[in-house]
């Protein structure tokens, strides 16, 4: 049990240290990860995620459309996966239906602002958490942007996925 919690503490500590290093500013070349938990948002034979992996969720509190992402610049590959595991486990503790991480979509901030979207830090759940904001409200406009984001992202599959 101690090992279990120490792993989470390690993930949070990595996040806090990275936050101090990058001093809250997001650079154009900065890398982000969108963790994917639905097998319908990936395709085994493709290096890209499906467009729906980037579609925003509507946040009732903020009244905004948001796509939850994580800052992964300067993180090792294993640290990136550990954040994904942390997101998965944090979510599964609160919900009856369990999900499992299938992989993550890696993308650059410059490919977000290219399409008039932007990313803002939102660190209440994790020091490296952020949201893609600026989404239009129209369904078709959201699809268009999600297609554009997906086509510039690289899909990294979790190794246990067959």
């Amino acid at each position, binding site marked *: 049990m101690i090992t279990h919690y120490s792993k989470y503490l390690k993930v949070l500590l990595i996040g806090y240290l990275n936050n101090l290093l990058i001093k809250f500013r997001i650079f154009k070349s900065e890398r982000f990860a969108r963790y994917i*938990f639905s097998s*319908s948002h990936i395709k085994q034979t493709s290096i890209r995620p499906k467009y729906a992996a980037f579609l925003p969720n509507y946040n009732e509190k903020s009244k905004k459309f948001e796509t939850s992402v994580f800052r992964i610049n300067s993180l090792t590959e294993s640290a990136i996966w550990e954040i994904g595991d942390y997101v998965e486990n944090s979510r599964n503790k609160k919900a009856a239906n369990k999900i499992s991480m299938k992989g993550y979509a890696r993308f650059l901030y410059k490919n977000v602002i290219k399409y008039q979207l932007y990313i803002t830090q939102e660190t209440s759940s994790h020091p490296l958490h952020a949201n893609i904001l600026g989404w239009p409200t129209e*369904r*078709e406009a959201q*699809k268009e942007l999600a*297609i554009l984001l997906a086509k510039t992202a690289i899909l990294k599959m979790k190794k246990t996925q067959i």
Partner: protein
Amino acid sequence: MTALTIPADSFHTFRVSTPSLVGSPIKIFYPEETKSFSYDEKHIPRDISDLELSLVQIFFECSVSDWDGYGAKPISKDALYEALDFISMIPKSFQLPEIVPEPNGEIGFEWNFGENRILVASVKGTGIVAYAGILGNEELRIRGTEILDNTLFQIFKSIINRIS
């Protein structure tokens, strides 16, 4: 392979185009125990029956809240029935799309022919289809909404002819 578990005591009625059951509703009932079957993630729909099966499998997976881990809305039966209508209207000359659930509870259909050649459309049970696509060049994009009828597929035909 991904095992898909269907909740016990659930049933759903579908209309499918499986030849022996054309036009007939099918009630799938799981009375006492949790049933499971495998969904091959590499499976690409080869015909309309395959596509309908994919749709049903995805519906079961995404008919609960937060199926994507980010608070996604469940896919409603209205969206499912409209998706079945959408599938029944796909012209025979079209390559079959892939089914993609969307976090706002809509059911998406994706025709992807490669880099910058993609069309996606979605239904949510309101009779209005939203679509967007890239037509061979990132600068050439299209998007819109249309009523779900044959006019929609005339539009899609011209898009798919261009990008396939």
